[in-house]
C-alpha cells in the first residue's frame, strides 16, 4: 500500500514537468515563478538569511529578472547548485537561468552550449597570504602549498600560471569556500587562491584581517555572468536586457529612490524614457509590457545600488568598484543603448 507516495509524487512531477528548451518565457509565465540557480552559499553573492530569504549580489539579479517577467521580485524559486551540478541543472531545464558567479569561457559558451548574457562582475583570480610569510609576489611562491576550490576554472588557471612561471606548487583541492577558509587559517596551506572578490569577502571575516595580504598578481580574467541555455534567443534577450537595464539605470542616474518620479511622466532624456517605458515600445519587442525595466530596477535598485548593498565598501565584504565601475568612471560596465 505504501507504494503510493511515488504516485503522489509523480503527480507533482507531472506538474513540474514542462518542455525544456523552447519558449522558456511562456513556461515561466505559466508557472508564475522563475527558477534561478544560485550557489549553495558564497558570502555577498548568495546566502540565505535567518528568515529563509536569499540575499546577495547574484540573487538580486534573479529578483530583478523575476520582477521584469512576472512583476514580482519574490516570485523566484532558488535552486542551489554546486560547481559540478550547475551546468546540468541548466541544460536539463531544471532552472531557467544560472546566476552563480560563473566564468564566461569559450568552451562553456560553445562546447557546453550555453549563452552568457553579459557580465555582472569582472573578476580575476588572486592569492591571499599571511603577512608573516613575507611574500610580496605570487612568483615567489615556489614550492608553496596552495588551497584551491575544486570544480571551477581556478585549478586550470593555477596550473597554467605556475607552468608559465616554471615554478612548482602543491595543490590542496577543497570542496567549498568555507572549508578552504578554515584550512587556510589553520595554516594547512600557505596561500589560498580564488576569485579576488571571494578573497576580499573571505578576508573580511577573519578575526585579524590586517594580518593577511592579497598579492598583487591577478592571474586570470574571470568575467562572471548569468547564463541561459542555447537555442532560446527570446529568453536570452530578456535576461540580457534586464542586466543591461540595471547597468544603464546607474549610468543615467535612475535609482530606486527617484524611479517613481522619473517614470511618472516622460523626462527630457529620451534614453531614460525608453528605458522606463514612457516612450517607445521596447517592452513589447521583448514580449513583455513596457514597464519591465522599471520593475526590474525597483526590485533592488540599479546595478550600483545592488553592488553597494551586497558587496560594496559599506558591507563587511568591502569590495571597491574597480573594474566594475561604469565606463564613464573608468570601469568596464558599458550597456548598449536602449533604442
Amino acid at each position, binding site marked *: 500500500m505504501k507504494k503510493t507516495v511515488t504516485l503522489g509524487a509523480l503527480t507533482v512531477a507531472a506538474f513540474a514537468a514542462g518542455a525544456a528548451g523552447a519558449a522558456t518565457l511562456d513556461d515561466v509565465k505559466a508557472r508564475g515563478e522563475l527558477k534561478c540557480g544560485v550557489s549553495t552559499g558564497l558570502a555577498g553573492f548568495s546566502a540565505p538569511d535567518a528568515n529563509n530569504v536569499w540575499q546577495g549580489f547574484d540573487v538580486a539579479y534573479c529578483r530583478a529578472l523575476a520582477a521584469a517577467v512576472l512583476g514580482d521580485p519574490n516570485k523566484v524559486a532558488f535552486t542551489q547548485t554546486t560547481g*559540478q551540478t550547475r551546468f546540468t541543472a541548466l541544460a536539463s531545464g531544471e532552472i531557467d537561468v544560472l546566476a552563480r558567479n560563473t566564468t564566461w569561457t569559450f568552451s562553456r559558451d560553445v562546447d557546453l552550449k550555453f549563452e552568457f548574457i553579459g557580465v555582472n562582475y569582472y573578476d580575476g583570480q588572486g592569492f591571499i597570504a599571511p603577512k608573516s610569510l613575507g611574500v610580496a609576489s605570487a612568483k615567489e611562491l615556489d614550492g608553496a602549498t596552495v588551497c584551491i576550490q575544486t570544480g571551477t576554472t581556478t585549478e586550470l588557471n593555477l596550473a597554467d600560471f605556475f607552468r608559465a612561471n616554471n615554478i612548482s606548487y602543491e595543490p590542496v583541492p577543497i570542496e567549498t569556500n568555507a572549508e578552504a577558509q578554515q584550512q587556510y587559517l589553520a595554516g594547512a596551506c600557505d596561500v589560498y587562491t580564488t576569485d579576488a572578490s571571494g578573497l576580499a569577502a573571505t578576508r573580511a571575516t577573519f578575526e585579524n584581517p590586517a594580518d593577511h595580504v592579497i598579492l598583487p598578481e591577478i592571474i586570470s580574467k574571470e568575467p562572471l555572468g548569468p547564463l541561459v541555455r542555447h537555442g532560446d534567443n527570446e529568453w536570452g534577450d530578456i535576461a540580457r536586457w534586464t542586466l543591461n537595464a540595471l547597468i544603464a539605470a546607474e549610468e543615467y542616474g535612475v535609482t530606486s529612490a527617484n524611479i517613481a518620479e522619473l517614470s511618472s511622466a516622460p523626462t527630457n532624456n529620451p534614453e531614460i524614457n525608453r528605458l522606463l517605458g514612457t516612450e517607445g515600445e521596447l517592452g513589447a519587442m521583448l514580449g513583455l509590457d513596457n514597464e519591465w525595466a522599471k520593475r526590474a530596477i525597483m526590485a533592488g535598485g540599479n546595478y550600483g545600488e545592488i553592488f553597494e548593498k551586497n558587496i560594496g565598501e559599506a558591507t563587511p565584504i568591502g569590495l571597491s568598484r574597480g573594474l566594475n565601475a561604469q565606463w564613464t568612471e573608468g570601469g568596464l560596465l558599458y550597456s548598449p543603448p536602449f533604442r
Partner: protein
Amino acid sequence: MSDTHAQTVAFVRDTMLDQKDPPLNQVGAVKWIRENLFSGWLNILLTLASLWVVYAVLSHLLPWALRGVWDASNLTQCREIIAERYGAGTSAACWAVLTERWPQLIFGFYPKELYWRPILAFLIFLAAVAPVLFSAVPRKMLWVSALAPFVLFWLIWGGSLWGPIAAILGFVIGWAILTFAAPKIGTLLAVILAIVVPLFYWLVICGPLSDALASVVPLSLRAVATQKMGGFLLATIIGVSGIVLSLPLGILLALGRQSDMFIINKFSVAFIEIIRGVPLIVWLFTASLLLNYFLPPGTNFDLMLRVIIMVTLFSAAYIAEVVRGGLAALPKGQYEAADALGLDYWKSMRLVILPQALKISIPGIVNTFIGLFKDTTLVVFIGLLDPIGLSSSIRATTDWNGVYWELFVFIGLCFFVFCFSMGRYSLFLEKKLRREHR
C-alpha cells in the same frame, strides 16, 4: 564453670561467631574498583590510559562548550562577548549561531508559520510505524499506516487534498477488481486487470478528476515547493520515503533472487549486484547529472524526486539482501508445508512465508534505514541542502562566516540521538525474536 572447662577440655565452640565484615578492600566501591579497574598490570595500564584519554578529551571540550555564548547576532559580536567575559584569546563556542539558525537546520527554508505541518507529519509518521514496529499496538492501527503516506505527502507538500484522495482511489479500484472480479474471470486475468486499470486511471483520469473535485470543493493547504525543504526535514523525507518505497521492490527482488526461473533470477542478481557494487554518491550524481538523459525529452523532474527514485533503487537492493536473509532463515519445512497445503506460489508467499520472513527481517530493515538516513548527508554534493549543506550556507552569510565546530557538533548530536535510539530498538527486537524462537 567456665574456668573448669577451660582447664579440662580443649576449647570447643558451641555458638556461631558473628559474621565479620569482609575486608575493606573486598566490599563496595573498593572491591568493584579493584576487580574492574586494577586487576593486574595490564588492566592498570589500560585504566590509566583510558582515564588520561577521558581527561584529555573533556578538559578540551568542556570549557569550550560550557563557556559558549548563546546570545549574539553575529560572529564578530560573539567573539567580542567571549573576549570580554574570559579575556582575549580564550576559545569558546558560539552557540548563538544555533539559537538563531536552528529552525533552518531542522526545517530548511520551510515557511516559519507552517512549521506545524512537518511536526504533525512526523507525529503521524510515528503513529503509523508503531503498529509495524511494536506488536503490542493494536492491529487495527495498520489502517493508519496504510493511509499515512497520503496524509504525510499532503501535509508536507500541501496543495489540494483531492490529489492524494484520487490516488488512493486507484488502489481501491485495484483491490476491488482483485476481490470481486477474480472469482468470475480467473485469478491471472484479474491480476493483470488490477495492474492495468489503476495504471490507466492514474495516468489519464486521476489528474482531471482531482482537479474537478478541487474546483467543486476546494480543500487545500498552502503548497510548499521542494526547494524550500532542507535540513533534517529533507534527510528524513529522503530516508523514510527511500525505505518505504523500496520495501515492495526489495521483497520482489529477494523473491526473484530465490526464484528457479533463470532469467528472473539472473536479472535480480544483476540488479542487486550492480546497485550494491557502486557507491551511493555515484548514484546520486547519476540522479543529478544523468537521469534526464534516460527519460523522454522534455521530462523534467524535480531534483529531490530524482534523488528519492535513486535512493529507492539503492535501498531496494539492500532490502532485498536483508529479506533474502529472512527467507533463508526460515526452516525448509515451512515451504514444504505450504506446498503440501496446495497453496500456489503467491498464496504460500503471502500467507506463510513472507509474514514470518519479514518479521525476522525487521531489525535488518531498521539497520538499513539507519545507514540510509546517515547516507542522506551525501546529497550535499549535488546541491540539496541537507544539514551539512545548510551549515555551509549558513557559514556563507556575512554574519556567521567562520563559524565551524558549533554547527557540526549540533548536527552530529542530532544524528547520534536519532540513529542511536533506532539502533537500540533494532537490538531490542533482535533479542525479542531470539527469545521467541527458542
